[in-house]
């Protein structure tokens, strides 16, 4: 069972023009040159290692941080490391308008919350979410609050099975609760 409310500092993944980067694929998140790595502790250093402008993310990120990313985050391959590298860095969750289908599964299965917020693009465009802001996420209510700027926002609720898997702490732990 995971704690259902979290406060953390956000990283808003913007391009040079200050727009949320869409379609960040798993090779930008975790390059295929490091697919042979199976130790969680070794994965964090490669997180975002191939994303222009964000290659030093692993050095900057701190435990408990939250990522705000663009549409279709995690497009591409089925590699679990593209999720695990953030768990390795102790990133707490990722917020984006939408996620790649397999990426979303992989995260749910690892008990790592991804929250889908279609209005995030607009919120970021209006500077309602900026890197460094302190944000509180209520996973159970699928809601967020920017404490720094005092703005409240909502996410799409998770489906029942996803919620159950997340609350159990991941697919393996969920498996112990079913026959």
């Amino acid at each position, binding site marked *: 069972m995971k704690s259902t409310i979290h406060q953390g500092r956000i990283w808003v993944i913007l391009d040079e023009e200050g727009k949320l980067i*869409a*379609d960040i*694929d798993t*090779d*930008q998140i975790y*390059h*295929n*040159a490091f*697919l*042979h*790595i*199976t130790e969680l502790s070794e994965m964090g250093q490669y997180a975002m290692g*191939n994303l*222009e402008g964000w290659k030093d993310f692993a050095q900057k990120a701190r435990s408990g941080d939250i990522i705000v990313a663009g*549409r*279709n985050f995690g*497009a*591409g*391959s*089925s*590699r*679990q490391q593209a*999720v695990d590298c953030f768990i390795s860095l102790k990133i707490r969750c990722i917020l984006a308008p*939408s996620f*790649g*289908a*397999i990426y979303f*599964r*992989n995260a749910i*299965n*690892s008990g790592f919350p991804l929250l889908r917020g279609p209005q995030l693009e607009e919120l970021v465009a209006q500077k309602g979410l900026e890197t460094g802001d302190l944000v509180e996420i209520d996973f159970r209510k699928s809601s967020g609050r920017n404490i720094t700027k005092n703005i409240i926002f909502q996410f799409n609720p998770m*489906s029942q*099975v*996803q919620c159950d*898997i997340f609350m159990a702490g*991941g*697919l*393996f732990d969920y*498996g112990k609760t079913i026959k």
Partner: protein
Amino acid sequence: MVKNYKREYGDEPVADPDRTFFTFDLCAPASSLKYADNQQICRIFARKQNIRVFDVDRGIGSHVLMEEDLAESNSTVVGTDSHMNILGAIGCFGQGMGDVDISFAFKTGKTWFEIPETVRILLRGEYSWPSSAKDLTLFLLKKLGTEKVALKAVEFYGQPAERLSLSGRITLCSMVTEMAGIIGFVPEFKRSLVEEIGHFSGSKFSPLKPDKDCVYTDEIEIDLDGLPPQVAAPFSPTNVFSVSELRGVRIDSGFIGSCTNGRTEDFEEAYRILKGRKVKEDIMLKIVPATKRVYTELLEKGIIEGLFRSGAIISSPGCGGCAEGMVGLTGEGEVQISTGNRNFVGKQGKGKTYLASPAVVAASCAAGQIASPEDL
């Protein structure tokens, strides 16, 4: 995967060894110590668990499953390959997954799905050689981007879809992944194709039919009339142009293969272009058959020899030039034209990758620049 399994379940048996397999295709044979170790860990696990291994000689897992009649119409197959939805070509729901998902499926025989909504895409118009299934697919990527069918199932209708051969359907269904979709089906099968697939897999093929009361959340019509060859420019499979818009871009290397364009028909097409011609002297063309069966067919037809004599490098079967691991990478400044499905930044190295059909890649390698077969 094995590490997850052992940590969670120790030496407990998998749910059903007869429906559980290992395939090694990304880095086959292993070209790094880590891959060699990982593959051997899988082999030892498989021996203990009585699981069949399609080893490094066999080629791309999803293709092997079709050839071996292990993926069937109206069934569900899961595996650690984001192009497992290729199996949509034979009416099978293929879903790529990460290794947590797969460890769980190994042990329990179960998995979870959010049932996707379905979009109906009606294709119209006629196009002719040198345009192919890949050009149709790239054009759809241009029109649909990563938004129109994101997280949806897709059904393709209309003459251009119905006319597609099995390998053409593989090409189309594989790149539903790049459209951010879940799975693609071409529900209409001519009798000759039903027979061809039956012959291919060695058992009677019964096409999957949509439910009579099925609901489509969106219907999209796309006109393909007179479609010219298409090329996806770096760094997105949706960044698509007609070949004439990119004609003359200098290239350094070419790759023909991948789960998207690695069937016998694809290499026959490439050979049709290269027969009696040479790969331009300073161009490196890499050929990677999808599977051992494809390799065998190409050997028997003399195409391996033909392509080799035209100047191509021939690799053993597998995923080949789509990722690091088999037949080299692109260096900084290198421009590659590939029949693969992804050209994301850094995916195949520091160079730039253009995506195209086997005919356009072959023609470009002969010309030394992006070219249509008609330009030669």
